């Protein structure tokens, strides 16, 4: 009998101490974890909006198909809108910010969250570098954005977006064929990750279009 009490006391004490330790760590890191997400979103927003635009956050109601939250960037007489949308890819929800001008042309895109297959779907965030390990590691980091989202610039969301699979990936194309691709309102697929590519495109075609229409329809 005393044995049972002793065992119970020891286990309970271990559990209580453990829970207290975790709760303490949580209280120290909670604010920081929340900050991280907001910070990532803000810097992504700044990178996709026209440089110099004044960004205002609009927390709307979800009535009339409006997004729960969106951003407007005013630069002189031009206004662009940015929304956060997500669509399910191969193994995760791909969450991204997309910035469009009022005629529906995509000005910039940035992927915030994804957990796709390493080596295939994760390449939606791949940054191509032409530097080699032995001379690039300690030199200054070059600033460049992922090619997959870069190719969406200039695509119009009011027209159907075509996915080009046969011409190879965008980063390997020359300027001429990139222009040709854009005339067809097309983007290239990631080799071996067609599902992830299609998810991003269909998210833009359905959700972004709906949001932009709703904002314009409400006279904003």
């Amino acid at each position, binding site marked *: 009998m005393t044995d049972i009490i002793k065992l119970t006391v020891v286990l309970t004490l271990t559990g209580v101490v453990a829970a207290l330790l975790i709760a303490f760590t949580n209280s120290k890191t909670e604010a920081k974890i929340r900050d991280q997400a907001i910070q990532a979103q803000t810097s992504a927003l700044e990178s996709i909006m026209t440089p110099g635009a004044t960004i205002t956050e609009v927390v709307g109601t979800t009535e009339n198909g409006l997004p729960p939250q969106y951003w407007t960037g005013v630069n002189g007489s031009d206004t662009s809108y940015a929304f956060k949308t997500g669509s*399910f890819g191969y193994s995760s929800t791909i969450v991204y910010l997309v910035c469009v001008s009022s005629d529906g042309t995509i000005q910039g895109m940035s992927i915030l969250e994804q957990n796709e297959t390493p080596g295939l779907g994760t390449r939606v965030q791949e940054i191509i570098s032409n530097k080699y390990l032995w001379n690039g590691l300690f030199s200054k980091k070059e600033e460049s954005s992922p090619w997959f989202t870069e190719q969406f610039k200039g695509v119009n969301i009011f027209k159907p977006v075509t996915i080009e699979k046969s011409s190879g990936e965008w980063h390997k194309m020359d300027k001429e064929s990139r222009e040709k691709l854009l005339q067809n309102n097309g983007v290239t697929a990631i080799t071996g990750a067609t599902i992830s590519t299609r998810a991003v495109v269909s998210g833009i075609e359905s959700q972004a279009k709906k949001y932009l229409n709703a904002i314009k329809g409400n006279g904003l």
Partner: protein
Amino acid sequence: MGNIAGLIGISIGAVLINNFVLSRFIGLCPFFGVSKKLSSATGMGMAVIFVMGLASSFTWLINSFILQPYHVEYLQTIVFILVIAALVQLVEMALQKYSPSLYEALGIYLPLITTNCAVLGVAIINTGLNQFTGAPFTFIESVVNGIMSGIGFMFALILMAGIREKLELADVPELLDGLPIVFITAGLMALAFLGFSGLNFFS
């Protein structure tokens, strides 16, 4: 019960497309440890299916009715592993008392299951989003996911054990003999399972 198609989707996903062992890399230790003989592979597989089904239902209930309402999701890991450890002990004791024959068959594998990452893995996956609906798992979905992931595990384990029994008789080059050839076999199986990855039911 309106969503039978969704449940079938989860089942095929768990057994073939996202097979725990061959494409998610979860539960590898028993996959290599207990696959020498077909009979022990079957026993281990059954025990894992049983515990995974139970663990999925218990952890789902605890997560939805205790952890989430009180906003203590950060205790998830510690609570889940304790629930699984306790559950395995209870199952072991219950089997020993009420079904000695079943205990005889599964008993020796049960202690191994506490530290089998497949069980904790499915519990954590069930707290995320359902791949097919994009919404959180419902109770039935998570139980089906648990059992089906267990079946996927057993499927891979039995295939492996069958191949390994034949491998014993084969003349393998010295450098590859033993574990390396088993890993290569597993790699070829994973390659075959990669073929399922294009399956898409709902579009």
